[in-house]
């Protein structure tokens, strides 16, 4: 019988494929694997690639997803060290680290691993959360706030537990996902918030009134001070003016009688400037000319003229207004 080379080649390839399928397996980059020989884990594989195994029933491989899984705990009530009931939920990033431990322990089931993690998280709640007061979970004071530290402590506790229990897992990180208060407490918080708001409202209103009054009174005080200063300044200026004017006194000192006389004249003129009613007697110069005959010689002395003038002005009344 003659065989076609092509036929032979194809046959060979098929044989190779068949053998490869029987004797090899792949581990994807996202996976780890464990090879069991007669059901006993004998070879853990943590690197991706193509691997050899004896065919069933001698050896068998079990591949596991080695990516980091997100596990979320229940929203559980925990008592803080100062007696507050706090509801906490955390998320945990974990992955299969040692497949040869993981496989027999959880029968290769991530779900079962997470059930065990749940227990560890609960331990961490009572062991870590119970040691901290409520104010370290939430606080406006950054020094008092121990949020990150608490997460770290919980993570360390869980990591230690995982190690001692030989779960073959690695817990990478842990974060608080949710914080809450029991339902009855939220009602109390609401009531407190309500009264706080009312207080704040009143405070703001009072503050507004107080500040505006402060501003107004300050404005009044400032303007009064400004005016007083201006008055003082003006008085000072007037005083300077007067002292400057006084310098001219020396001039008048040359003849005080003349100075006095001139001033009187000026005073008289300005006093009787407008809408004046004058009642004069005939002895007033020049009305004395109205008298029948001036008997004798001399003109009146200035003193008598002055006195006549005085009379006249005394009798004068400004009745215009």
């Amino acid at each position, binding site marked *: 019988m003659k065989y076609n080379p092509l*036929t032979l080649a194809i*046959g060979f390839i098929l044989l190779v494929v068949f053998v490869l399928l029987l004797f090899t397996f792949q581990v994807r*980059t996202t996976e780890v694997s464990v090879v069991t020989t007669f059901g006993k884990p004998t070879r853990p594989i943590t690197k*991706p*690639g*193509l691997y050899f195994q004896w065919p069933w029933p001698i050896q068998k491989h079990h591949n596991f*997803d080695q*990516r980091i899984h*997100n596990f979320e705990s229940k929203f559980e009530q925990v008592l803080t060290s100062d007696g507050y009931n706090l509801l906490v939920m955390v*998320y945990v*990033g974990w992955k299969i680290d040692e497949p040869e431990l993981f496989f027999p322990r959880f029968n290769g089931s991530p779900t079962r691993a997470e059930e065990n993690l749940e227990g560890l998280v609960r331990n961490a709640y009572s062991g870590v959360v119970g040691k901290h007061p409520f104010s370290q979970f*939430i*606080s*406006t004071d950054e020094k008092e*706030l121990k*949020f990150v530290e608490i997460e770290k402590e919980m993570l360390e506790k869980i990591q230690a537990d995982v190690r001692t229990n030989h779960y073959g897992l690695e817990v990478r*990180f842990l*974060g*608080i*996902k949710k*914080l*809450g208060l029991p339902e*009855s407490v939220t009602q109390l*918080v*609401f009531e407190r*918030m*309500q009264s706080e*708001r*009312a207080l*704040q*409202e009143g405070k703001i*209103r009072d503050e*507004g009134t107080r*500040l505006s009054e402060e501003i107004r009174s300050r404005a009044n005080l400032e303007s009064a001070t400004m*005016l007083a200063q*201006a008055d003082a300044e*003006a008085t*000072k200026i007037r005083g*300077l003016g*007067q002292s400057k*004017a006084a310098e*001219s006194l020396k*001039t*008048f000192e040359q003849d005080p009688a*003349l100075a006095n006389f*001139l*001033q009187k*004249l*000026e005073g008289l003129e300005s006093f*009787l400037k407008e809408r004046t*009613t*004058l*009642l004069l*007697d*005939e002895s*007033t*110069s020049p009305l004395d000319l*109205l008298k029948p005959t001036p008997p004798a010689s001399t003109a009146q002395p*200035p003193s008598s003229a002055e006195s006549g003038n005085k009379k006249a002005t005394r009798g004068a009344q400004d*009745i215009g207004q």
Partner: protein
Amino acid sequence: MKDLQLTSNPKPEPPHELPTPEMTEDAGSQALSEALRSSFAIVKILMIGLVLVFFGSGFFTVGTQEKAIILRFGKPVGEGEKALLGPGPHWAFPSPVDEVVKIPIGQVQTVASTIGWYATSVVKEASGTEPEPGPSLNPALDGYLLTGDQNIIHARGSLLYRISEPGLRFTFDFADAAKLVQNAFNNALIFAAANLTVDDALKDIPGFREKVALRLQQLIGQEQLGVIVDRIDLQPIPPRKLKPEFEKVLAALVNRDKVLNEARSYENQTTSRAKSEAAVRINGGITESNLMVQLVVADAERFTELLPAYRRNPQLFMRQRQQETLQRVLANAEYKMVLPGVANGKPVEVRLQLNRETPKPKTPGPPPAEVDKH
């Protein structure tokens, strides 16, 4: 396939070896062999076609906003960033040898926070048929955040992020990376609120957002999520039950600002008025003083001018000046009356009646003074 070849090859031979005693049989087997040959040719073509299709299925294209990586027997081909294939057509061995994994590097992904908002749904919110807020919050249903001053607020946020280069970690190291990003975002919200007062969290949204972003950045670094945060949107609100109380405080704040503004404008007005009044008073002083000085100086000058004349004959000088002045005064006076100093040996008595009822003194008419002679 093998069977087919083995059985089909020997069949066409008999016609050549044994020349035909029975022509009918020969014709029959010839026809059969012809048929087999032609069908075998078809099968061959089909097989070649299948092989071509098999290798052709290894072609794939990478889009502009993604990268791809080839896993050969489960292991990345190439190291680190070199393993990444950019946009364009590529070829890989078909499965099960190679596997192509695409990484959406440039695409913006969105996650929303899952904590912090009260129990509602998009439909209810859009239609405005949300249930009335109860007196308390059910932790199983209602989300909320605790603020640093132990108050409760609601807040929801959305996070826009991209996978950072090379994206291998995001793709291969997490079972559900998006979920972890979301939880990191949730954690950042809780953390930020836990350090803020209720007023800061509600009013200073940029500050709140900054705290969230900072914490998120830390977590992304710690957990090595391999993402870049593009944008964070936050919407904090007070508990719905306390909405009126919070609004009252807001109104009080607005009112306070109004009152303060009024006071400030009063202050401005008053002080500027006082300033101008002060200037007026000072200027008044200056004017008065200048005037006085000028007058005195003028008087002094006049005095100096008149002094020589006065000294020559004081009496005449004085009389003349007096007369001049008197004339001017008399000329200016509105009413003038000349009375005798003494009449019939008695002094003259003058009575003035000031009449208030006739308010027309400006017109020159009857003299307002009535003169009686006794």
